[in-house]
């Protein structure tokens, strides 16, 4: 997987924040505004119901946007998702690769440098690291901060997507730490205007990429960054 084909703006579902009905209604505009990847995440929803939701999302999420299923590889297979996002404690990457076949994205959530290295060694296409800031999605979980994000970014060659309390205003700081992209729940789904929120994230990401490029920072600081050949 070419690291630059890894999605940058990830939207993660949360039925407690936004119903799937509402999400489906917004989806065409969310994708048009710049969401690259939608993660179907709905802990506690039984698999039978989840499969129905997955099929609905699949119909609406078309290239270049991708549909990823959180945790449940079986549902990812059945709905022909573009990949699976594994929790830190989830299935092994090898099982996901064997069952999904080629050309699919396999990512993993990590919460430490050690977990990032382990996931990279397993052959993940990307990592999600957080929570960078405090977030209502994980009440009580202390922010891990930008320095910790940078450490994780530099620990592996694998693109790192930052998550946790990331607002459009915070995107430049996160990208300057070397993050490949950001993952958002409430910043989009609980926004007064979710479509405008997506545009704001997109613009913030594209702007910072245009000037002080994060990849240059990574290379200059001696991290195990991607070579310029990848660009």
């Amino acid at each position, binding site marked *: 997987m070419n690291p630059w084909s890894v999605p940058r703006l990830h939207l993660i579902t949360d039925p407690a924040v936004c119903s799937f009905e509402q999400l489906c209604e917004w989806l065409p505009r969310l994708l048009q505004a710049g969401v690259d990847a939608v993660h179907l995440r709905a802990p506690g929803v039984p698999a039978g119901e989840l499969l129905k939701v997955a099929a609905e999302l699949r119909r609406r999420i078309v290239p270049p946007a991708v549909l990823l299923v959180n945790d449940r590889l079986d549902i990812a*297979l059945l709905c022909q998702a573009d990949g699976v996002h594994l929790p830190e404690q989830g299935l092994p990457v090898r099982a996901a690769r064997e069952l999904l076949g080629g050309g699919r994205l396999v990512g993993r959530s990590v919460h430490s440098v050690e977990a990032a290295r382990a996931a990279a060694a397993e052959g993940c296409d990307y990592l999600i690291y957080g929570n960078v800031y405090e977030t209502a999605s994980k009440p009580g979980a202390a922010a891990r901060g930008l320095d910790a994000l940078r450490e994780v970014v530099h620990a592996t060659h694998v693109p790192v997507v930052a998550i946790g309390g990331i607002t459009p205003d915070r995107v430049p700081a996160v990208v300057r730490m070397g993050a490949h992209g950001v993952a958002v729940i409430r910043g989009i789904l609980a926004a007064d205007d979710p479509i405008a929120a997506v545009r704001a994230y997109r613009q913030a990401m594209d702007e910072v990429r245009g000037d002080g490029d994060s990849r240059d920072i990574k290379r200059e600081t001696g991290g195990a960054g991607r070579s310029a050949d990848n660009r």
Partner: protein
Amino acid sequence: MVSWRGTRLRDALRLYVITDRTLARGRPESEIARQAIAGGATAIQLRWKTGPLSEALRVGRELRELCSREGVLFVVNDRVDLALALEADGVHVGVTDLPVAETRRLVGDQLVVGFSPETLEQALEAEAAGADYLGVGPVYPTVTKPDAGPAVGLEHVQRIAAAVRIPVVGIGGITAENAGAVIRAGAVGVAVISAVVGADDVRLAAAQLRKVVDEALAERQ
């Protein structure tokens, strides 16, 4: 791997023990399963409702190895992906889980697919969709699955067992005292959680249940 589907399956369903960490009182699943198999369990199901999947994988690998060594059917509950990752012999789904047809599509024709119907119609549909066996219950009141609903009784087992060709196991509140009646109602075996997993002497509890099941099956023939 030789498939458990077909004629082998009936015998493998005689005493079907389902893991449950909360009832095990700190004893590891592999130890419970080992003793249950020593007592006569013919199938072990990994049922994982809470806790990280990495733990289910760890426990599942132990159970996989144990069941292979002992020639016992190894089934994973609900998560078809976990069943595939663990190379289980089968997967068991309920009415809110992945549908039987989709489950069959994922696992191919080698793995056993079990289903827990709530109604006769669901039982017939599941059979047509590729289920290999049915778990019918709760036969008697049970505390293990608070969401299982009221006991459906022996008549329900009888009605479903008479209507389908695939084997039926009774589940829910089954003990050595009442297991014989479940077999006489048409089940080929019994599935238990607390009667074995919660027993002080797991091996003895399994042996007593197995004896009752075998005797009732012998009488029926």
